[in-house]
């Protein structure tokens, strides 16, 4: 699904502009990574697309339909989201968490009784394996899993309804570097598998360069860079992160080794 933002302004209470006139067009199937410092507006951009925030001015259109205020349930269920803090039900099983991604497409009585259709259950198992989790974990509680495993569950849940847009808000911010690479690869892989547009925010430059088709640099709520990873040079990094030194924010400091 295509995402188009026209002059979007998002103002929080007190007049702080989290997004300050963002215009952006992401064609269907593109893997787009948003880079920026903390507070640059990465989350605000993603939350606006998902519908957690309503733009103060400007227009948000999904597949040509303007969805500024209200969006239909059918449309909402075509967006999958992966969260920084995983947002899983810790006391429920892996299977129940993955299956919950299919709730919008299920009749209420099935949800209340926890009676998932055989098709849904088969999809849960297939996704559980596709995100690289061991079969033995399927009915374990999520709270007994490691952070990386939990985020795999999060990715599987987001894919339950074969979304047309996959949004990932700092999906690897609380994971170690190796797991981060695995999860990012998984996200791109899953998005490609269902042909979904991927919109992902990270703060590690290497990850963005490695996995993005296109990088969008945000600073103080404005787009300061928009282009393919090859074009992300020192000047562009300086525009996004300020002085080049700060660009190493949260990436391993090489000098320290």
């Amino acid at each position, binding site marked *: 699904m295509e995402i188009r933002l026209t002059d979007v302004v998002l103002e929080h209470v007190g007049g702080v502009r989290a997004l300050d006139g963002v215009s952006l067009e992401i064609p269907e199937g593109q893997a787009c990574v948003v880079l920026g410092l903390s507070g640059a507006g990465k989350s605000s951009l993603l939350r606006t697309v998902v519908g957690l925030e309503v733009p103060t001015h400007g227009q948000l259109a999904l597949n040509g339909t303007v969805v500024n205020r209200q969006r239909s349930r059918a449309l909402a269920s075509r967006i999958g989201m992966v969260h920084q803090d995983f*947002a899983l039900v810790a006391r429920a099983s892996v299977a129940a968490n993955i299956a*919950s991604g299919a709730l919008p497409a299920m009749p209420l009585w099935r949800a209340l009784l*926890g009676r998932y259709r055989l098709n849904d259950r088969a999809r849960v198992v297939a996704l559980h394996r596709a995100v690289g989790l061991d079969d033995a974990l399927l009915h374990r509680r999520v709270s007994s899993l490691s952070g990386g495993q939990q985020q795999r569950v999060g990715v599987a849940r987001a894919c339950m309804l074969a979304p047309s847009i996959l949004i990932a808000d700092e999906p690897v911010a609380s994971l170690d570097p190796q797991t981060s690479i695995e999860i990012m690869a998984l996200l791109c892989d899953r998005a490609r598998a269902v042909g979904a547009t991927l919109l992902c925010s990270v703060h590690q430059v290497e990850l963005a360069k490695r996995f993005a088709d296109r990088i969008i640099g945000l600073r103080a709520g404005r787009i300061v860079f928009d282009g393919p990873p090859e074009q992300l040079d020192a000047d562009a990094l300086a525009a996004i992160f300020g002085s080049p030194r700060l660009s190493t924010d949260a990436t391993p400091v090489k000098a320290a080794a």
Partner: protein
Amino acid sequence: MIYGLAANFPQPYRFRHLALALLAVLLLLVSGQRIGIDRAISMTAGAVLATLGVGPPSPVADALARGREQLWPLQLETREDVARLPPIDVGALPPLSYLETGTQREAMLDPKTSQPIFRIVRTTWLVEPFGYLGHVALKMLETLEIALWGTLVAMLLRLPLALLSARNTMPARAVRLAARGVVAVLRAIPELMSALFLVMAFGFGPIPGLLALGLHAAGFLGKFYADDMEASDPAPQKALIVIGTSRLAVWRVAILPQVMPQFIAYTLYILDRNVRMATVIGLVGAGGIGQELRGRFDMYQFGHVGTILVATLLVVVVIDVVANRLRSFAGL
């Protein structure tokens, strides 16, 4: 500079704490005067001294001793005049029971002179040695059943109440406030008071009892369930709402698993509490052992009262132990 900050350190006790303490003492003095704390102390002390045999006779000690004497021996048997029973087959008496014939003095008024006269009557009694114990056991069972059904009524009512009064399941503020109001009222009315009125409406027996227990417990559970639901981790709830999941489905999948342990703990507590309340709720006529106690007490049959007291004590202690076992078994 440093000494200036050090001098302004908050001190634990100041003049206003002293003033508050004095005010509290003053209030207690006034209230103690009204309640009669002085008499409570002197009467209790007098009773203790009299019992130890060092003081003058004490009315409190005497009354307690009289009660003790009358409660013992416990009344275990039932004894009924055969003449007042429907005809019984002597060959097929109830198990353990026997017939006993004796004489008793009967008082009546002389029809001519209106003077009391006495005559000796020969009476046959049907004696069931553990008849009253069995009766008390049945009443005790009824008490437990009242507690159980009261808990079930509460469980039935609390769910809609909690769902309507929690912020994350009911977005409409007006509905939430109304539900919270209902819950507060239910919780505010003590069981004994609502039972008093329910007895007027439903008549004597277990029905007003279980309703009174159920309504109060529904208020308690409704509030605590709603509070717990509101305090549950919002992240998974938002994650589901954002993809278009209905509120009820979100509740079932993302809220219920989080709060289930507390729900079970509260419900066990309510069951435990209802057993204890069910024993007293009969005092206003709402069924169970309390109603039996009230009846025997009003007829000055203290032997029966003794049996009831001992039975109640035993059952409450046993239930307490069982509930504790259950709770540790459930890992709470």
